[in-house]
């Protein structure tokens, strides 16, 4: 199979590989896929509590070159976006940007799932910590 030059570039020079502290209340972690399906993506976002903007994003992916490229690209796009803007990223945007062939569309779907899962985790943490911290008003970040 021939890969697009963008897929090869992300595979050879993946952006933002790594991990953020998953217990940090401002970090959301998404882990999607399954080893027996041949794809697992871990995607993390770190949200600035003051601005609601994603300051940092990291990924680790077990999967084919297109899966690595999709998650690498996703982390690039996430940085600087608000949580709501991040939720607007569609798998089709990834397909277009990376020129993924039809058999690799599932890689982009997985990347979108990973973004949604990471943000859902972040929101959940914010919800719980907001309850816990009710009254001491140190957690006044936007949640919706």
């Amino acid at each position, binding site marked *: 199979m021939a890969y697009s030059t963008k897929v090869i570039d992300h595979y050879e020079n993946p952006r933002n590989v790594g991990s953020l502290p998953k217990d940090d209340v401002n970090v959301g972690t998404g882990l999607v*896929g*399954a*080893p027996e399906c041949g794809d697992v993506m871990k995607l993390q976002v770190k949200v600035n509590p003051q601005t609601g903007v994603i300051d940092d994003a990291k*990924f680790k*992916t*077990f999967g084919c*070159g297109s899966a690595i490229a999709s998650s690498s690209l996703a982390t690039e796009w996430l940085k600087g976006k608000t949580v709501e803007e991040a939720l607007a990223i569609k798998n089709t945007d990834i397909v277009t940007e990376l020129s993924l062939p039809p058999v690799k569309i599932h890689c982009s779907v997985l990347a979108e799932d990973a973004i949604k899962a990471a943000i859902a985790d972040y929101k959940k943490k914010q919800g719980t910590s907001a309850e816990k911290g009710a009254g001491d008003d140190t957690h006044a970040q936007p949640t919706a």
Partner: protein
Amino acid sequence: MSVKLPIYLDYHATTPVDPRVVEEMLPYFTKQFGNAASRNHPFGWEAEEAVEKARKQVGDLIGANAKEIVFTSGATESDNLAIKGAAEMYREKGNHIITCVTEHKAVIDTCKRLEKEGFRVTYLPVRKDGRISLDDLKAAITDKTILITIMTANNEIGVIQPVAEIGAIAKEKGILFHTDAVQAVGKVPFNVNDLKVDMASISAHKMYGPKGVGALYVRRRNPRVLLAPLIDGGGHERGMRSGTLNVPGIVGFGKAAELCRQEMESDTKRLSGLRDRLNARLHKGLDEIYINGSMEHRLPHNLNISFAYVEGESLLMGINDVAVSSGSACTSASLEPSYVLKALGAGDDLAHSSIRFGLGRWTTEEEIDYVADKLTTVVTRLREMSPLYELAKEGVDLSTMQWQTEGH
């Protein structure tokens, strides 16, 4: 010394034609171009003589009489002819066939076709080492069993089945025994009488001969095997396979067989040495790598390894100057991981992480060292970006984790 790239380590898929074979074939394209079935002029006689010489060369390689060799277009046709031909011929005796889950698709899909036509097929499981259990085989035999078809050596994991033992059981029960011997013939000793094989499929292009030519060994006595032909026509090949013979291809096949017979011992010694070197070097550089299938009962030029926590296709991308194949779903047309590796019970994740190395006549030590070192680097890099590796290092048991699998 620098190695020449790309490096070919996919000799189970096909082999280059040995230049000595090509040389032997060339006159039969232009000067001695006759039809081997032309009985009334020297062009035909020359072609027939060349075909009969090749028939003997192929027969000699497997301990068969030349008359027992039926030339075909390749091993897929040979498998089809053996299985469908025997099924049709012996239908009145019974309708049960025994095969195995790790067979080549040419055998499995042929058996599936026969199931649609009213035959019953038992697909024996394999143990973790890739071999069938003889007790399973014995238990599967009924008074309706007419054919056992079990491959000699597997094309993915190189595991060699207990062919002689299967042959003895088949003989005792009076059941025909066919073996797809494509990967084994020319590489390891294979004798149809020692192994008590009634039919054997062989392919020229897996043993340094040309593509498009193969053979089916069909036993002529004790018992005399009869097959219904798949292709009707001029009655070539004792009526079992009509069609003008591919004379240059057959000549090449014969020469390739002769060379394999002469060089098998030295090739085997050299290649098993290189294969063990590759294995040792990989194990030295990497932890958590697993050999798929028995190391004891294995072709000397095969290695199949799963690199845990790394997906096969991404691994192949990282070693794109090395030609190998992977059991990963992403590298197959079906998007399913290797059914052979799944049958070993290793788990789909390890099937996705596997690479098959096939060494051959022109593999060098420099190439082996290059491949081992490059793989070590790439696997290490990919593990650094693998969430599975990270989880495993944190002590998480991946097999008990809840994965979100819906939709994938």
